[in-house]
């Protein structure tokens, strides 16, 4: 654990990050920016896993292992979503949310 910092402060930080991500998810019009907000949300979740593991149950490793899985999933999801976005841009020449009305060409 970090010297002089208790669990409440770190959890508050991660929940603030999470809700900033939610705010961006709702307000952004661009698909890439929506994806970046999702990155913020997933990172807040990973922080929570690691922090709760180290502060409350230092004898176990579950949180540490699951945070690795979260990072792998986030990277995979980002790469696939960017592939889809680029393909969509080829089709409709726009990445705004309101312009993407077709799912299949």
């Amino acid at each position: 654990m970090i010297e002089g910092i208790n669990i409440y402060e770190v959890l508050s930080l991660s929940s603030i990050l999470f809700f900033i991500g939610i705010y961006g998810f709702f307000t952004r019009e661009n698909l890439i920016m929506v994806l970046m907000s999702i990155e913020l949300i997933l990172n807040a979740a990973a922080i929570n896993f690691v922090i709760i593991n180290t502060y409350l149950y230092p004898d176990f490793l579950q949180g540490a292992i699951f945070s690795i899985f979260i990072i792998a999933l986030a990277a995979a999801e980002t790469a696939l979503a960017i592939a889809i976005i680029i393909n969509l841009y080829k089709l409709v020449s726009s990445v705004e949310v309101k312009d993407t009305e077709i799912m299949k060409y």
Partner: protein
Amino acid sequence: MIVFAIATVSSRKVLRAVMYLLFVLIGISGIYFLIDYSFLGAIQIVVYGGGVVVLFIFSVLLIHHVELELEVTPLKKKISAGILSAVGLGITLWAILTYPFKTANSYQSIEVEEIGRKLLSYEDGGYILPFEVISILLLAVMIGAIVIAKGKKLGLKEGEIENRE
């Protein structure tokens, strides 16, 4: 870090928003280093700083012009989303701050060796199954991205991520 996170979701220039996101991610890896879990901190820097942010920058440059500014979100939408997330944040913070956490007194740093053994053990409490599932998932995402984008650039990036696992 919070300032950079707010800048990420409110900046109107796309590339600047990506750089703010990079700063946030590096700050998060700083948290991991502070709690002595340097393996995850290094993973965070390598995967996000080296992989995801570069991918974002590539796609932004492929799609937009560098100086392109985003459309302004309507104020009504901003206010309603802000109220919604503020209410959610208030409820979450209230729940966190009123819950009596029993912080453990003993403390040990997380060792990479133990994690490696745990990930590959097939006894009770081992994580061999999720490990294999995530390998298959990364392979499927790699093939899927190549098929969807029909280009080789994205596929190569995926290969880097796969190798790191």
